[in-house]
């Protein structure tokens, strides 16, 4: 049977907003996060982090640190490299520059915050005290901070990356010159998205406990990818995988940042093995801002050719991703610009695309995944350009999109990058958003406001999202990876159901939504299902990343349940004197189709399989337990759009979001309340990235925004109430018609916010292309238009 087989699930609990079963533990403080894992005899570490962005360690002396109270062990990079050379991150692509990130630098240091030495002590405070006694002599090397000039520059950010070029790609290079030459209108811009930090409220952390008597290494990780981490520990530390367990406690948000193998994780394992005691690493916020994978920083030099009717003719994009000093694992910087150019045209019919992506090494923290990764930046550039074209042609931003989105009659539509779009509700999204916003009224209100000296702006964005990323999607994005999950479903003798899954949660509600899926697979109440997750002993999964858990949960549980259902049907058929094909399961009953009177309780059939051999058909396999894998047969696409209204205060030059709207089509929703939660949270992050958040490095590579006082996250005053509307185009590739959607709001909200700021400024004929649109940048734009000297606003 194929791993992409679509099992039958009859939605009943699916589609309802049942409250989350994990909430009581979280609401009462009983849930245990990584920092709450306390083991007898446990030691704590602190890591000495490089104060310089590029250098070479001349000499390091740890003797004084070693002698400090409570210190058990101090290691330098030399101690580490003898045991593990580091995290090798490569992709089987010609021209891809492989990097090896040492767990602690032993020679070359490539960014501020890179680990140099580690102290293990009885408390974190003692370990930090000892750090201060470590004496390091670093020879400083030239620092590369600007990705744009790095390629031709003489200085290398990392000696392993020639010309600072990690990967240069140009998979789609249609001849577009003619289209641009003949176009009625060309709009173009240089769009800079900021370097940001996903900033989950819980920082990263890892605990390892090695027991030599059993040879077991038990780890606790605040991770989104426990199975992956487990296998990487086995490979990089050559540790027997059968003796390894990675447990995921409650995780305080991840958003992609916790979907990597971090050097600290391997380090903590090595220390626990070395010392034979549990070792804990709990990152502090400053470390997180310095060292946790950063995200999104890139330049999109994009141009769109448009004809007189506002139809898109061709798109050109050149992306430079500021990748940092090493490739993160597993994503590498290709997850930004390279993935981005392959989805740059997504919801629109654009028949010619020419795009290239440069992933450039700099002396900064490695870039990695953060919600909407790959999509956010090109979507922002494209949508702002579309608004600009609409203004020039005198079209409404809705109308120009209506004229260009992929329509029903276009399906299947193959994008120039090669993605097949089989379904979606792009046109309906535009119409729905327009109605929600009340476009005509908004323009009137905008005019009125201008008379009062207030600047309003409207931005909209239409997106499609590669959700439920499996092997096909990864291969499309040039990742030579295989990605399926498994689940095990067991019907207990009393008719209750236990599901073991590799899917872990960092707030997305899987203990609840997966139970809804399993309940509907058997036609039983959701209370009768338990979801076991959080240990790699349970099942295999690629991770809670890339909006994939709903898809893989439905796929794996559906397929495993189908196997068990077949066996229960065989027993029931015998008991009810019918054929297996006629047997159905619904409302806690197993009955003959169309004849619920000829039926028996689900639990009775389970009991018969376990305890009454006389009821078994010949050659019956009584295991009411099955494991199955799932990997969708093709890319699962969700879609939708966002609209944002901002007001710019002319006094403070601050842009404030007044109202936000979302249209989401993720097929059939498992739990609408949870879907809406994902939208609201993602939209808030989108506002952060576009108006507030920016990791700023000076030209020495020093991070100048290293606390939450400088790195500004959106608060309850920055995010207004959000209006949400749903469309439903069920997936034909996933049981129940389900699609993923967790990333969607971060794919397209930044574009809508950026569009709104530019709409507000358009009356002065100025634009902002560098984000976040901070008061400083808005001030500069307004100064350019000379509006700040009290002149009245144009009508």
């Amino acid at each position, binding site marked *: 049977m194929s791993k992409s087989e679509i099992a039958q699930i009859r939605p009943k609990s699916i589609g309802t907003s049942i409250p989350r079963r994990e*909430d009581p533990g979280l*609401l009462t403080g009983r849930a245990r996060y990584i*920092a709450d894992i306390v083991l007898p005899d446990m030691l704590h570490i602190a890591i000495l982090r490089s104060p310089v962005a590029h250098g070479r360690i001349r000499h390091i002396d740890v003797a004084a640190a070693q002698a400090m109270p409570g210190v058990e062990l101090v290691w330098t990079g030399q101690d580490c490299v003898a045991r593990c050379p580091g995290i090798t991150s490569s992709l089987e692509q010609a021209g891809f520059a492989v990097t090896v990130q040492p767990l602690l630098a032993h020679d070359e240091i490539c960014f501020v915050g890179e680990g140099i030495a580690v102290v293990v002590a009885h408390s974190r405070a003692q370990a930090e005290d000892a750090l201060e006694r470590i004496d390091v002599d670093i020879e400083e090397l030239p620092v590369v901070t600007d990705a744009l000039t790095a390629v031709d520059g003489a200085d290398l950010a990392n000696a392993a990356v020639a010309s600072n070029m990690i990967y240069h790609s140009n998979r789609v290079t249609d001849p577009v010159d003619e289209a641009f030459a003949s176009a009625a209108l060309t709009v173009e811009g240089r769009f800079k998205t900021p370097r940001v930090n996903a900033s989950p*409220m819980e920082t990263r952390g890892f605990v390892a406990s090695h027991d030599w008597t059993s040879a077991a290494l038990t780890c606790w990780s605040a991770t989104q990818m426990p199975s992956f981490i487990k296998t990487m520990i086995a490979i990089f530390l050559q540790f027997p995988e059968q003796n390894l367990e990675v447990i995921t406690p409650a995780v*305080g*948000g991840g958003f992609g940042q916790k979907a990597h193998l971090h050097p600290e994780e391997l380090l903590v394992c090595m220390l626990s093995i070395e010392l034979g005691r549990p070792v804990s690493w709990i990152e502090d*916020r400053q470390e997180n801002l310095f060292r946790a994978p950063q995200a999104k920083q890139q330049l999109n030099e994009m141009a769109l050719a448009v004809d007189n009717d506002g139809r898109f003719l061709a798109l050109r994009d050149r992306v430079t991703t500021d990748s940092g000093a090493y490739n993160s694992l597993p994503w590498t910087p290709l997850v930004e610009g390279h993935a981005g150019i392959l989805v740059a045209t997504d919801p629109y019919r654009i028949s010619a695309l020419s795009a290239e992506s440069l992933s450039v090494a700099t002396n900064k923290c490695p870039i990695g995944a953060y919600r909407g990764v790959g999509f956010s930046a090109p979507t922002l550039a494209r949508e702002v350009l579309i608004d600009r074209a609409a203004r020039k042609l005198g079209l409404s931003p809705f109308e120009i999109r209506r004229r260009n989105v992929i329509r029903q009659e276009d399906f299947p539509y193959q994008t120039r990058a090669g993605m097949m779009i089989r379904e979606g509700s792009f046109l309906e999204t535009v119409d729905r958003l327009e109605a929600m916003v009340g476009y005509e009224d908004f323009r009137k209100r905008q005019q009125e406001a201008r008379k009062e000296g207030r600047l309003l702006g409207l931005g909209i964005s239409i997106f499609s999202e590669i959700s439920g990323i499996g092997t096909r999607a990864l291969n499309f994005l040039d990742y030579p990876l295989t990605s399926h999950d498994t689940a095990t479903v067991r019907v207990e003798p009393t008719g209750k159901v236990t599901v073991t899954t590799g899917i872990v949660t960092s*707030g997305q509600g899987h203990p609840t939504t997966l139970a809804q899926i399993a309940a509907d697979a058997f036609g039983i109440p959701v209370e009768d299902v338990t979801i076991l997750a959080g240990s790699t002993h349970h099942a295999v999964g690629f991770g809670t990343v890339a909006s994939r858990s709903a898809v893989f949960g439905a796929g794996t549980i559906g397929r495993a349940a189908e196997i068990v259902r077949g066996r229960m049907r065989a027993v029931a058929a015998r008991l009810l004197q019918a054929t297996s094909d006629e047997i159905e399961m619904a409302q806690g009953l197993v009955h003959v189709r169309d004849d619920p009177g000829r039926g028996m309780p689900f639990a009775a059939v389970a009991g018969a399989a376990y305890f009454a051999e006389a009821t078994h058909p010949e050659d019956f396999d009584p295991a009411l337990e099955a494991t199955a894998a799932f990997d969708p047969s093709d890319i699962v696409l969700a879609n939708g759009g966002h609209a944002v209204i901002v007001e710019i205060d002319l006094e403070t030059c601050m842009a404030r979001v007044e109202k936000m709207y979302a249209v989401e089509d993720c097929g059939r929703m498992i739990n609408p*309340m949870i879907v809406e939660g994902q939208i609201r949270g993602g939209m808030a992050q989108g506002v952060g990235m576009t108006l507030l958040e920016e990791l700023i490095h000076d030209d020495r590579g020093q991070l100048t925004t290293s606390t939450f006082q400088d790195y500004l996250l959106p608060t309850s005053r920055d995010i207004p109430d959000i209006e949400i509307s749903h469309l439903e185009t069920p997936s034909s590739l996933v049981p129940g018609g389900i699609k993923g959607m967790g990333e969607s709001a971060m794919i397209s909200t930044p574009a809508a916010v950026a569009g709104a700021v530019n709409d507000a400024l358009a009356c002065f004929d100025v634009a902002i292309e560098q984000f976040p649109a901070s008061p400083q940048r808005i001030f500069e734009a307004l100064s350019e238009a000379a509006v700040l000297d009290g002149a009245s606003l144009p009508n």
Partner: protein
Amino acid sequence: MRRADEDQKMGVVATVNGRERRFEVLPRVSLADSLREELGLYGVRVGCEHGVCGACTIIVDDLPVRSCLMLGVQADGKTIRTVESLGGGKELHPLQQAFQRHHALQCGFCTSGILATAQALLEENPCPTRDEVREVLSGNICRCTGYQTIVDAIMDYAACAQANDTAFDAGAGESAT
């Protein structure tokens, strides 16, 4: 006066979640860490340790306080309430129920602090406006929810409490954890 010796633990006596507790703590340890490590109140979350995120918010003498900015020794003689005092029995406190009903939490890491902030607000102002709630909440960062459902939950709770004529009953389900 006792001398605050760097590595000498000091004794603290405080009323914590309705019970008198005595513990010893180094003078440099924050109140957040003291409550977690000395009293096992792991519901106190630490998100930034510099007073910005609000995750560590608890109630000290009826005021919301960032426990990462206070030292453990400063708790001496104070009355402290942590999330463990809400709904500590066998069911959720109505405020917690409202949070669940409205999906006012996702990862839950900010939740202890937000409940404390809400609790302190409602004790002082039992029927706040939406704007007032948003204003008070702005000291607590939530990275998951976008805040709207948190405001919904607090408003809903306040409306119910109003209708049932019950002011904020902090003692409901109080435990001695």
